[in-house]
């Protein structure tokens, strides 16, 4: 390794080293801006699209033994544009008038579902430690060593070349071709463009295909940098691309490209100089390994919060957005009295029977799953508050839960606090963090608020967790972040049954509190704000105060749930429980099942904990057939299915923001009420209907 003595040559080295990654970030960011400009969709699924192309290329090269050219053609030049085209046709074309936030949720659903669909369809399993191959023979070998400061590999040089030519191609397209002119026109005003006789949806399809092509290209180019091909890494890439796109204000393509490249360079510069600075600045030493990967998230957060112009760019939406009727009232408020009573009786009987079976018949593994479902239901109530009540999409609920869990761990370990008290204090700390976070973030509003929470989640994930006063540092790496089960008077929570009882009681308390908040002044205030922010302000409601309250309540609930989950597993288990990707999946799950009601959160909790074991492993069929041996051989199905199902379930958020179950429930309620009404006046109805029959 060449290492120049002077800072100048070090800087040069960092710049050369950062260029390949920077150009790939720029490529992805361009893909992001293309669809945002032409269809108003902020596409968080872009990473999933990049993953799909990278995985197909890998599969074709390694498992099927294809040569480079056909593998590249099929994975990047056929699959990627086709995927973009299909997504636009099947999904986003129909969401034109939906709000930007609704579209964002749909793309999150796709981000979860697409890699899972692909893995299932091709039977693709990423193998740990198997480094993806590049698109040039002998890619890892040194090809060029400019200035004698850093040896670029063939793969890296290829990335720079491809990205630069893609950018040049895009510039030519925009400047000199008809379709480019149309695209620019559609950006200005889709409706005006249509009035001039240009099919704006065709232009939109084209931009989606192009955007997806860029994503696929970026995916294949960046893949050799990873040890293992895994979808979450590609999602991280999108967050970096978002930072680049934010620098370009989501409109300027050249600035976006410069933003991506700049980020790549900035990361490399920090990588080079941070160790040196930390020699003189001791406080840097603790974060120096973690600050580099966190740079994009810090930049993103800083751009969002400190750059006032970005707030004004949120108006990129269809002029007809906002005329959509509000979602219908929950089924529970419209159904007849008799049906309500019947539903409640059924619910009580069902839960009592299930509870008794679990308490007295279930073995340890089932008990574990049921307890987990109960605790997740509690955590999901935090999404009911922030999304269902306040109408904001927060992508850092997992982080709030992790704060609750880590805080309890620290309090128990260092202060010897009693576990349950520590959980409560942990929740309060999470609430404070939620309130403080909401201060800068709230002014953003809409999708930028969601993106800022995402940046916070990634910042926590890459920096905070590694600090010893949060995640426990080296000691925790060796011993784990242990939390004991509490003793509460005569109840020893080491007994799983007693702990399940405690979890159920806490869930009921929180659920009860959420219902009261919803019906009380806080809930009414939030509902007024969601209905009309201007109207609410005109009667003296402070939007900031109401939303800070909502964030704090939501973070508190998530925090107490996170602590409880850690106590159940007797370990925080951050990466499996609370990673940013987990936050996304939680949101998708709750939104697809119903974010507006308390039952929705509980159904989502049950789905999270039990979907695998009950449905995918075929336990229900085994139980119905009265023998586990008779479970058909198609079971157990892959756990990946839940990502497919719930990810796709979130696609209907734009149409039915109340959730699938709620939507189904309303349909069923109306059907039953109609049937009952028809029965009541049966005799005249029967006579009238028989007449035409005999006539026919």
């Amino acid at each position: 390794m060449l290492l120049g003595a002077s800072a100048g040559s070090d800087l040069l080295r960092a710049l050369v080293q950062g260029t390949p990654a920077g150009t790939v970030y720029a490529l992805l960011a361009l893909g992001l801006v293309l669809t945002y400009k032409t269809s108003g969709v902020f596409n968080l699924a872009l990473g999933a699209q990049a993953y799909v192309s990278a995985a197909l290329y890998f599969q074709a090269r390694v498992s099927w033994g294809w040569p480079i050219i056909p593998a590249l053609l099929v994975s990047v030049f056929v699959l990627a544009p086709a995927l973009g085209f299909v997504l636009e046709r099947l999904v986003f074309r129909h969401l034109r008038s939906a709000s930007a936030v609704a579209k964002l949720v749909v793309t999150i659903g796709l981000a979860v579902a697409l890699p899972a669909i692909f893995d299932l369809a091709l039977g693709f399993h990423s193998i740990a430690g198997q480094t993806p191959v590049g698109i040039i023979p002998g890619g890892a070998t040194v090809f060029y060593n400019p200035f004698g400061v850093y040896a670029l590999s063939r793969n890296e040089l290829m990335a720079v070349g491809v990205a630069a030519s893609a950018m040049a191609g895009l510039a030519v397209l925009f400047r000199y071709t008809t379709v480019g002119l149309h695209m620019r026109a559609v950006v200005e005003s889709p409706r005006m463009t249509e009035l001039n006789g240009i099919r704006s949806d065709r232009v939109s399809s084209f931009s989606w295909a192009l955007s997806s092509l860029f994503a696929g290209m970026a995916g294949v180019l960046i893949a050799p940098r990873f040890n293992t091909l895994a979808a979450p890494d590609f999602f991280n890439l999108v967050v970096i691309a978002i930072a680049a796109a934010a620098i370009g204000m989501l409109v300027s393509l050249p600035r976006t490209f410069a933003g991506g490249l700049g980020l790549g360079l900035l990361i490399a510069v920090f990588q080079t100089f941070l160790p040196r600075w930390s020699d003189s600045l001791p406080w840097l030493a603790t974060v120096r390994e973690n600050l580099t990967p966190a740079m994009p998230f810090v930049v993103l957060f800083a751009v969002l919060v400190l750059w006032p112009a970005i707030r004004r760019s949120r108006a990129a939406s269809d002029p007809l957005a906002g005329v959509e009727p509000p979602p219908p009232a929950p089924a529970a408020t419209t159904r007849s009295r008799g049906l309500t009573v019947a539903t409640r009786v059924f619910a009580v009987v069902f839960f009592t029977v299930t509870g008794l079976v679990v308490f007295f018949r279930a073995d340890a593994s089932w008990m574990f799953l049921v307890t987990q479902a109960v605790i997740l239901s509690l955590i999901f109530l935090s999404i009911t508050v922030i999304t269902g009540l306040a109408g904001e999409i927060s992508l850092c609920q997992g982080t709030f839960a992790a704060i609750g869990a880590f805080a309890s761990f620290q309090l128990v370990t260092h202060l010897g606090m009693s576990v349950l008290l520590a959980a409560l204090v942990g929740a309060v700390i999470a609430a404070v963090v939620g309130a403080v976070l909401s201060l800068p973030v709230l002014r953003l509003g809409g999708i930028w608020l969601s993106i800022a929470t995402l940046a916070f989640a990634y910042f926590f994930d890459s920096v905070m967790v590694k600090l010893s006063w949060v995640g426990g540092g080296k000691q925790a790496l060796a011993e784990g972040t242990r939390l004991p089960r509490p003793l509460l008077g005569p109840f020893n929570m080491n007994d799983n049954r007693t702990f399940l009882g405690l979890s159920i009681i806490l869930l009921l308390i929180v659920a009860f509190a959420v219902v009261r908040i919803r019906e009380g002044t806080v809930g009414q205030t939030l509902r007024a704000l969601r209905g009309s922010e201007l109207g609410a302000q005109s009667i003296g409601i402070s939007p900031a105060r109401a939303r800070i309250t909502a964030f704090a309540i939501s973070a508190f609930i998530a925090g107490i749930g996170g602590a409880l989950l850690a106590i159940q597993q007797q370990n925080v288990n951050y990466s499996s429980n609370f990673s940013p990707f987990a936050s996304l999946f939680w949101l998708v799950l709750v939104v697809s099942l119903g974010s507006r009601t308390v039952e929705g959160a509980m159904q989502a909790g049950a789905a999270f904990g039990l979907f695998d074991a009950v449905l995918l492993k075929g336990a229900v069929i085994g139980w119905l057939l009265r023998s586990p041996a008779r479970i058909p051989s198609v079971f157990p199905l892959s756990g990946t299915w839940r990502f497919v199902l719930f990810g796709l379930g979130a696609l209907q958020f734009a149409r039915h923001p109340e959730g699938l179950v709620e939507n189904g429930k309303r349909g069923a309620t109306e059907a039953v009420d109609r049937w009952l009404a028809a029965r009541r006046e049966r005799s005249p109805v029967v006579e009238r209907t028989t007449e035409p029959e005999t006539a026919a």
Partner: protein
Amino acid sequence: MSATADEPFLQAKGVAKSFAGIMAVHHVDIAVAAGERVGLIGPNGAGKTTLFNCLLGVVPVDRGVVQLAGEDVTRLPIHLRARRGLGRTFQRIELFAEATVREHLLIAERTRRGDGALWKDLLGRGRPKADEIERCDHILGLLGLAELADAPSEHLSLGQGRLLEVGRALMTEPRLLLLDEPSSGLDHDETVDLGRTLRDAQIDRGFGVLLVEHDVEFVSDFTDRCLVLDAGRLIAEGPTGEVLASDAVREAYLGTMGTVA
């Protein structure tokens, strides 16, 4: 009524606002006393809406001062001006989706009382109390919306929606109500009905009104005093009848009509 006509409740001095270099409002002074009914008219693009938004705090002023009851509120956000007695309605109605007619008024009542602590909700004290419902229903009766109290606001006609906005604003006990083109989108009969109901409510509650309106008939029926804005400047002010008859006003209106045609 606490304030008399001598000491204005709302006072704006030298308010100016420009957008991208174009002066929308040009050094305007206005004063409205509590209990007074004042009209603000002017041709399209005269700066009425901008002035309105400056008074309410929807957009910040470039220069000038806005005072409520003698207090400088130029830098205060919308909701704090609302709490100091500045109510409003909207040209494009801004109702709370998913809330019934009465709930619109209940939340306004709660906000006015500042009675929305989280712990009260948690203890189940968040539900509407009998006296609150009574106050709401009184206002609804005054506006002729009593029968619609439990209806979802989506079921209201445009005219009823306007009245509901008035009712929602009245729950905050405003000293001055800013009405933004209340007749827009209504036909003649509906406008007359709205004017009558508004007048009854105004006499009953004694709040002041600043009315931005296109419909000259409405303005002359409803207001005692009138301000005329043209090209961002105040060109006339005085008793409504005189102002509407004056040459300057006719010229401003007919002048723009001429250019539009």
